[in-house]
């Protein structure tokens, strides 16, 4: 299994017992998760540079278990080039954008360099989306950067937005629908596989923000073929990482 939407560290407005990378690896061993693609919660919060440094420490401690997303802030667009060059030279594989915490529009100018970089390097850009507006905005942006791989984080989050995400991205080669989310709606996995195909759906958990085990049970118990489960849980992420 590859968790294409994971994190690292703690979060300011709710409690969980542990968010360090050692605890994460211990859980990954238990549930047989091969690797997790992580961004630090610090990175989508107050200090993206410090967050990226935390991710680097995790990667260096467990290079086979973690791959890194470079978190960026649209409030510091002039720093993006330097940060991306630095982190990709350190082995990071993608970009993480969180328009929600940064309170910034997906199609705002502060993100444009990140999209251009993703397009040039054919790397994944994981964007947190919540609500129909975010879903539509990402779908539109993705058309302008056809070589970037857009991972629609949470696929819009609420059920109506998740359904819309499948409906409007069906046929888009460079958009993957991310299953990450605490709601784990009954039937959405089956709907996605039927609508866009299992090749365009990614497994993610928000781990350690959220425990990864329920999401695994949700997907494994869904009424889809085993080969579709394998695509979602492993093969799609593997294919993306090989093409960067």
């Amino acid at each position, binding site marked *: 299994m590859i968790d294409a939407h994971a994190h690292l560290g703690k979060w300011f*407005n*709710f*409690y*969980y*017992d*542990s*968010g360090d990378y050692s*605890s994460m690896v211990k*859980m990954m061993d*238990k*549930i047989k998760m091969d690797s997790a693609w992580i961004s630090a919660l610090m990175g989508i919060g107050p200090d993206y540079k410090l967050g990226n440094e935390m991710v680097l420490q995790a990667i260096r401690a467990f290079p086979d278990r973690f791959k890194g997303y470079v978190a960026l802030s649209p409030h510091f667009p002039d720093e993006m080039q330097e940060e991306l060059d630095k982190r990709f030279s350190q082995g990071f594989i993608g970009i993480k954008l969180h328009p929600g915490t940064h309170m910034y529009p997906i199609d705002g100018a502060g993100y444009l360099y990140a999209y251009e970089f993703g397009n040039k390097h054919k790397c994944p850009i994981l964007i947190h989306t919540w609500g129909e507006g975010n879903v539509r905005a990402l779908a539109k942006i993705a058309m302008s950067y056809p070589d970037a791989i857009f991972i629609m984080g949470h696929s819009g989050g609420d*059920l*109506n937005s998740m*359904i819309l995400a499948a409906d409007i991205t069906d046929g888009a080669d460079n958009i993957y629908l991310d299953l990450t989310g*605490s*709601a*784990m*709606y*009954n*039937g*959405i996995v*089956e*709907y996605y596989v039927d609508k866009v195909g299992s090749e365009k759906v990614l497994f993610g958990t928000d*781990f*350690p*923000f*959220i*425990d*990864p*085990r*329920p*999401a*695994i*049970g*949700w997907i*494994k*118990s*869904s009424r889809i073929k085993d080969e579709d489960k394998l695509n979602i849980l492993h093969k799609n992420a593997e294919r993306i990482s090989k093409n960067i």
Partner: protein
Amino acid sequence: MREYFDINVMIGKPTVVQLDKWLTIDRLSVEMDRFNIKKALVYHSYSRDYDAHFGNIHLIEEIAECSDIYPSWVLLPLDIFPLNSPEKLIEEFKKNNIRAIRLFPEFHNFLLEEEIIGDLLAPLEEIGIPVIVSPNKVGWKDIFNTLKNHPQLKLILVDLTYRNSSYVFPLLKRYKDVYIELSGYIPFLGIEGIYRRFGAEQMVFGSNLPYKSPGATLFYIENADIPEEAKDLIAYKNASRLIQEVKI
């Protein structure tokens, strides 16, 4: 495979149906077989979305032939409920083998204030019948206030989220008759954290069917780093004990 007792199931067609997820008795039976759920505590969508007692009566009729399903009635404050006294309520509980209650203040437009709901909660507390509520919809402050007035009330909290530990920990510490249903309570290492602090006696399995798949919570419990006996309590025994302890 471990046996499960699901305390959080709705049957019937709700007002909003998405992805065709609503349950008839036959559909529920398929799900129960699939996940080895041996018993279920069920309420009716009509009780939540139309009229509480109309749905309650409908529920009894629908599950009449089902020995593995317990009815959970939805109640309102006695001032606005057809069974408007504790005596009438308990008589009907006996007649229909009612073993749990659900309250939907957020749907049914009432408050969990003592002046409004106190004369209903007092007899429920007295007979030890579990009362199921959704604190994130009701408001956590109202849960704490309710328990100050009714400290022996057997309260099962459902629709929790991974963000709720700051409320859950003090409640479980102070009130041994408060239980959490696990389908939404999924912070990292959540089950292990509750077990380490409070033991396994205050956790129960619930699927939140038809909105969620039982597979998620089953996998969570089965892969928890706690003793097998603790998993048995969470999966089945705690709920079974709660149902059997009702004094009617």
